[in-house]
């Protein structure tokens, strides 16, 4: 392919509408429709309770209220539990909630009643007049309580254990028993959440004239929502269209579906015969969407004098909240991606996925990898400290080498496929990182800072990220008679710049002007076969599908043009939308080729006049050949055998205040390898955003539940999402481009990368500055201060041996 735009910093086409305030997010839709109704939800104030009575008699007296639903109003499939989206043989006790709570509630925020009114203010007034009687039950909050199992979240789930899963390659416990050195670590990560700036939202309109339901949802999967809405409301799939408009960030939370409101809004719209909108507010997002990250890990490792891993045995406990709609994806990813760029000779991992009376857990950017990276990298640092070796040396000893790809780990990944890395060059990445952060010069810097009474530390962390998981994505490319190219792919966009990156691929593959390409994502009317946007898969999956579909359209264009120009296809080239015979003046516009591709009976403009069956083709043959079809189009799907594995390494230098324990970032460096870059500007933007989210997760953000299961910090006042003042002032980025052999463009995913190593890299740097182990993240200044007191005996000593 000619690579004119691929790999260049093309300005985003999305920006024009966003900058003018002309983006169309779900809450912006139908605002000028006077018939639009608004929904509000009554949510449980208790973490664990039986519902003994719901009295809605006062609600319908409120002027402007049209309807209220509770569980008793739901019938057929709507009265069944929500789907368990990703079943797994080891998820022996999967449970999902109902669209509206039936008999019991299991977390603060669980939906109980759904009110529809003329505006949101009135709907909320009405919600406050619903009276619910509860029998309060003691809740299970946190992993320790879940494991203790003194109380159960679900009466029929013994030990609060939803799943127990074990994988092993070799014999890890025997290898550890025989190893010259062993260490044991206990490592914890707390809960956090995606918190996109736009919460969830759904609008639905039933059209009685055409008997069709249109649903707009702020989702990461429009085809998934469509399937659920049709199944739950008993509609033929063909009657339901789901459109994902502009989405104000997702980061994982919007892949879960259907949310109760994604079903209740269409139900209300059909019942009332008027369009209905639900827009989640910020408190609702904290207590009724999804969280992630909370895990407790026990690690046993055996290694030799060089720090080579001989056996690694990891047991961990995953808090999945009150229900398991998204299955075991997060802990499975932790258990497999924990290995990072290393090759432990014997590895055993076992986890239990536990119920608690808290908000459900579904993937959040990184999806279990930040925890896995934290476990592995803390282990590497512990080995280095034990042996008195440089931390980069121990890592280098354990790296999979460039000549070992494809590298088979002998484990099963989250997509049910073998965990096999396709490509990478970890030693080269590490050399780049050391140069970028100044690893070898750091001891001198530390000494200079110490002379000023300042305390600094450096840390690094490496990760490998399985991206572009299947099963597939598709694309449809249509060249119109104007020469404009309309492309549809089914997965959705949440700000990644897909309309730009995908148009770059089309422009190059097809040979058309970038400005002539228009990309549509997430609209089931235009591409009904799709999976969704998650697991850093959009560029790999839809990018590849769009490339393949463009090739098909190109192939057809060349065939028709060759006939028209009386030339051989091999002699043709396409540039800026014009097909020409190399070395001659003979040429034809792609728009004209599109005219020729579609023999017409009726002429409606100049172009179509040229395409009527009286002016096109051989009168001795059918106007459309038997093995052909009208139109200049290409459609194809990309379905890889397995994921492609991107990788990266981060390093950070922090300063910790000797008095206040405040943690300041002095330098942040990233080496990233996601294969070929489609648009380096967009990739770097993804890294910037990931790093900021990682800083939040490492130093500021956590979900603070009290023992009653109340989320105490469910607002932006109390959940400390970083402002510009909390993030590094600069992020030094270097790329390595190790192409993937698994897809035609050699690309790997980049969306989640920036956030994966954050907990690990900050823990390492703070530990290096302070001289005592950091085993739990996030860490606040007050927690660091408490650790200093705890390690008071060691701090004087540490100050003198910071060279290790």
């Amino acid at each position, binding site marked *: 392919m000619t690579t004119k735009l691929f790999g260049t910093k093309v300005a985003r086409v999305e920006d024009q509408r*966003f900058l003018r305030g002309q983006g169309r997010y779900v809450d912006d839709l139908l605002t000028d429709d006077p018939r639009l109704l608004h929904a509000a939800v009554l949510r449980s104030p208790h973490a664990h309770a039986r519902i003994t009575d719901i009295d809605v008699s006062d609600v319908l007296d409120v002027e402007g209220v049209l309807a209220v639903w509770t569980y008793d109003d739901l019938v057929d499939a709507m009265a069944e539990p929500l789907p368990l989206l990703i079943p797994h043989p080891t998820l022996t006790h999967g449970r999902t909630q109902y669209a509206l709570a039936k008999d019991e509630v299991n977390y603060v925020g669980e939906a109980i009643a759904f009110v529809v009114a003329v505006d949101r203010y009135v709907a909320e007034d009405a919600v406050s007049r619903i009276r619910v009687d509860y029998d309060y039950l003691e809740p299970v909050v946190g992993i320790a309580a879940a494991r203790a199992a003194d109380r159960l979240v679900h009466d029929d789930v013994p030990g609060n254990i939803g799943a127990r899963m074990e994988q092993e390659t070799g014999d890890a416990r025997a290898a550890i028993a025989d190893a010259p050195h062993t260490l044991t670590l206990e490592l914890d990560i707390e809960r956090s959440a995606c918190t996109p*700036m736009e919460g969830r939202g759904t609008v639905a309109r039933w059209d009685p004239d055409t008997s069709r339901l249109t649903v707009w949802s702020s989702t990461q999967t429009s085809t998934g929502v469509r399937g659920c809405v049709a199944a739950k409301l008993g509609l033929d799939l063909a009657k339901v269209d789901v459109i994902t408009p502009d989405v104000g960030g997702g980061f994982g939370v919007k892949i879960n579906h259907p949310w109760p409101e994604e079903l209740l809004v269409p139900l209300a719209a059909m019942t009332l015969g008027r369009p209905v909108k639900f827009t989640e507010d910020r408190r609702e997002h904290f207590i009724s969407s999804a969280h992630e990250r909370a895990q407790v890990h026990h690690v046993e490792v055996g290694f030799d004098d060089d720090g080579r891993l001989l056996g690694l045995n990891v047991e961990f406990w995953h808090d999945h909240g009150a229900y398991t709609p998204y299955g075991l994806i997060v802990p499975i990813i932790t258990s497999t991606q924990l290995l990072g760029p290393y090759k432990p000779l014997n590895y055993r991992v076992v986890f239990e996925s536990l119920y608690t009376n808290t908000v459900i857990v579904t993937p959040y950017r990184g999806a279990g990898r930040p925890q896995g990276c934290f476990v592995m990298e803390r282990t590497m640092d512990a080995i280095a400290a034990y042996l008195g070796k440089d931390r980069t040396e121990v890592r280098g000893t354990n790296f999979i080498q460039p000549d070992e790809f494809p590298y088979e780990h002998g484990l099963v990944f989250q997509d049910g496929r073998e965990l096999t890395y396709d490509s990478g060059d970890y030693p080269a990445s590490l050399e780049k990182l050391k140069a970028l952060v100044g690893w070898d010069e750091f001891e001198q810097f530390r000494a200079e800072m110490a002379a000023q009474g300042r305390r600094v530390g450096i840390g690094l962390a490496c990760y490998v990220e399985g991206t572009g998981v299947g099963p597939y994505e598709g694309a449809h490319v249509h060249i119109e008679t104007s020469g404009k190219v309309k492309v549809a792919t089914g997965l959705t966009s949440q700000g990644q710049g897909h309309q730009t990156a995908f148009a770059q691929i089309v422009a190059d593959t097809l040979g058309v002007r970038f400005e002539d390409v228009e990309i549509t994502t997430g609209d089931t009317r235009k591409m009904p076969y799709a999976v969704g946007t998650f697991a850093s898969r959009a560029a790999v999956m839809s990018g590849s599908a769009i490339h393949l579909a463009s090739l098909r359209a190109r192939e057809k264009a060349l065939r028709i043009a060759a006939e028209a120009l009386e030339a051989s296809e091999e002699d043709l080239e396409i540039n800026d939308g014009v097909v020409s015979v190399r070395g001659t003046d003979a040429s034809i516009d792609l728009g004209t080729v599109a005219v020729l591709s579609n023999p017409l009976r009726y002429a409606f403009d100049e172009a179509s006049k040229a395409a009527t069956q009286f002016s096109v083709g051989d009168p001795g043959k059918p106007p459309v050949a038997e093995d052909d079809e009208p139109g200049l189009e290409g459609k194809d799907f990309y379905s890889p055998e397995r994921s492609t594995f991107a990788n990266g390494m981060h390093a950070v230098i922090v300063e910790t205040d000797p008095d206040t324990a405040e943690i300041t970032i002095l330098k942040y460096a990233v080496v990233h390898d996601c294969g070929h870059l489609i648009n380096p500007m*967009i990739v770097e*933007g993804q890294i910037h955003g990931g790093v*900021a989210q990682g800083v939040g997760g490492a130093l500021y953000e956590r979900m603070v539940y009290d023992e009653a299961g109340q989320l105490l910090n469910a*607002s*932006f006042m109390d959940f400390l999402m970083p402002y510009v003042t909390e*993030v590094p002032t600069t992020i030094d980025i270097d790329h390595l481009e190790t192409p993937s052999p698994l897809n035609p463009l050699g690309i790997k995913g980049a969306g989640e990368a920036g956030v994966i190593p954050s907990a690990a890299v900050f823990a390492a740097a703070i530990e290096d500055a302070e001289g005592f182990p950091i085993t739990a993240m996030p860490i606040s200044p007050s927690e660091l201060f408490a650790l200093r007191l705890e390690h008071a005996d060691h701090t004087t000593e540490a100050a003198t041996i910071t060279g290790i």
Partner: protein
Amino acid sequence: MSEQVHDVRLHVNGSVHEVQVPARRLLSDALRHDCGLTGTHVGCEHGVCGACTVLVDGRPMRSCLMLAVSAVDSEITTVEGLTEADGTPQGRLSPVQQAFSDCHGLQCGFCTPGFLTTITAGLRDNPDPSEDEAREMIAGNLCRCTGYQNIVKSVLRAAEITAEIESGERT
């Protein structure tokens, strides 16, 4: 009992909007749902995120913390009003808007209107900010996508573009 509504005349982006709203209606909701100006986004409704920031008599104001009825005597500018007239229906991007495009200062675009209005006012007060001052200017707005790196660059670039226009180097 039906809720009492008030006739409110809002001056937004140089146009007058006559709306009937209850006293409790937030300015953010009135702009979005009554005036149809959906460019102003609501991210938290408790004044922390800054996405709903508009200019009220030229000063940045969180429209979720102001009631529509209290905005009657003010001139309000939303993101839709930042674009400059150039004879085309779309208008030309203002220096701040153009800088965001140049520097990849936005991703999902949801927080962007609040940044654009805040920086527009900020650069009027301080047309030539240092990098630290640029950071200070946006330190009250949340963004979950960009990590702020390119927003800081956008502030500095916007100052540059404005200077180029004022010196006649750029039209």
